[in-house]
């Protein structure tokens, strides 16, 4: 079972992509989940709202997998509030 922050990212992806949460794991590929470039931008928007963060365009361009998405969010959330990043 992954940590609470990862869980929140995964459920946010599932909700935005309108797929069942069980389908989304940290190892899922964008292709498996049918995520194209516009879907990716939608998901980043949902994550920005969910965590009240701003994902810079440059960072967004580096994201090519769910794992990179989760790691990127962890980093941005940690910069904003270290306690929340640890799932506390």
């Amino acid at each position, binding site marked *: 079972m992954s940590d609470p922050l990862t869980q929140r990212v995964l459920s946010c992806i599932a909700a935005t992509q309108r797929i069942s949460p069980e389908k989304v794991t940290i190892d899922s590929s964008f292709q498996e989940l049918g995520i*194209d*470039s*516009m879907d990716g*931008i939608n998901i*980043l928007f949902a994550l920005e709202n969910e965590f009240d963060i701003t994902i*810079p*365009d440059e960072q*967004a361009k580096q994201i090519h997998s769910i794992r990179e998405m989760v790691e990127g969010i962890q980093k941005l959330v940690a910069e904003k509030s270290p306690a929340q990043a640890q799932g506390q």
Partner: protein
Amino acid sequence: MRRVAITGIGVISALGKNACEFWSALEQGRSGIAPIETVDRSKLRFQNGGEVHGYCPGDYFEEKHADFIDRFAQFGVIAAREAIRDSGLDRDDIDSESTTIITGSCVGGQCSEDLGFVELYQKDRGRVHPLTIARTMANAGASHISMEFGITGPAYTISTACSSSNHAVGQAYWTVRNGGADVAITGGSEAVFSMGFLKAWEAMRVISPDTCRPFSKDRTGMILGEGGAMLVLEPLDRALARGAKIHAEIVGFGMSADAGHITQPSVEGAARAIRSALRDGGVPPEQVGYINAHGTATQLNDPMETAAIRAVFGEHAGRLAISSTKSMHGHALGAAGALEAVATILALRQGVLPPTAGFRQADPDCDLDVIPNQSRRADVEVAMSNSFAFGGLNAVLAFRRYDASRDRTS
């Protein structure tokens, strides 16, 4: 079918307020992209745009009149005035039902709408300006041109995002070619700079934080622009009979739909539109010497467009030159095709091909001759202009250099 001549051009854009200034900047490869001034850019992730610098409605319209017209429609009227003046046609020649007006605009008077929403949602005032509807409607440009010049023929506006004005010019060309009108005023106009609309573009993550570098490996996205451009089209015979100056002929129009994705472009869709324009004009592909590319400088468009041109022209793709003048005037969405039509027509007439400005590094996926940074002398027989819209709606125009001596001998 009648041959169709372009006898008038008018343009207002980031490159100046008339066709002469526009061409001078294009020829010198000088960009009009600069820090955005009409919207508070401190709230934006991107800073630069192609605004009409130092624009003052009072220079063109009486105050009372200007109140009724959104910035986008003002640009349309200003460009139409210049085009009609340039054509040498008098008001008596065009104030009839045999003149048609076909304009393109993607978002119409969204700046006026945005102002209304600020009043309503931000300032919590219970009412918006009563002219909001009349200013916002996308056909306002066509309507104001018809009223100013007393034109009573078919007048309408086409909205197909970034292809809007190529669709408009193409329809006007067919209308004149088929005898549906004796004069067409056609082109497009756009005013994109409002906080709400810029924020929507910001969310799409396709706007460059720097500048527009089409076909360059280090390109970082598009730059929005605004402005208007209009053409006057007439049957060639009629234009010659009245001794008009002929800028060029318009000889082909092609359209297609990708039927694919709402934002991702398709090589096949783009190629179909280019082929269709060649077929429409009976133009042999090897006569084409220059293409004013859609060239948005997004990651997806430029390689797609390169592949589409290679698919259509085969070996000849290596002999033709392309450039994206969006690198200088920005992407004016529904006005883009009209601005680029003017650039293409003047390139034919002047025998000079405008460059792709801001180009720094060759991209193996965009390996055509993109005329990097410096314009080039070249007498080209046929030139094309591509527009590929979000939503997968494509429109391509073909123009031919007008050679008076050839007409006299034939």
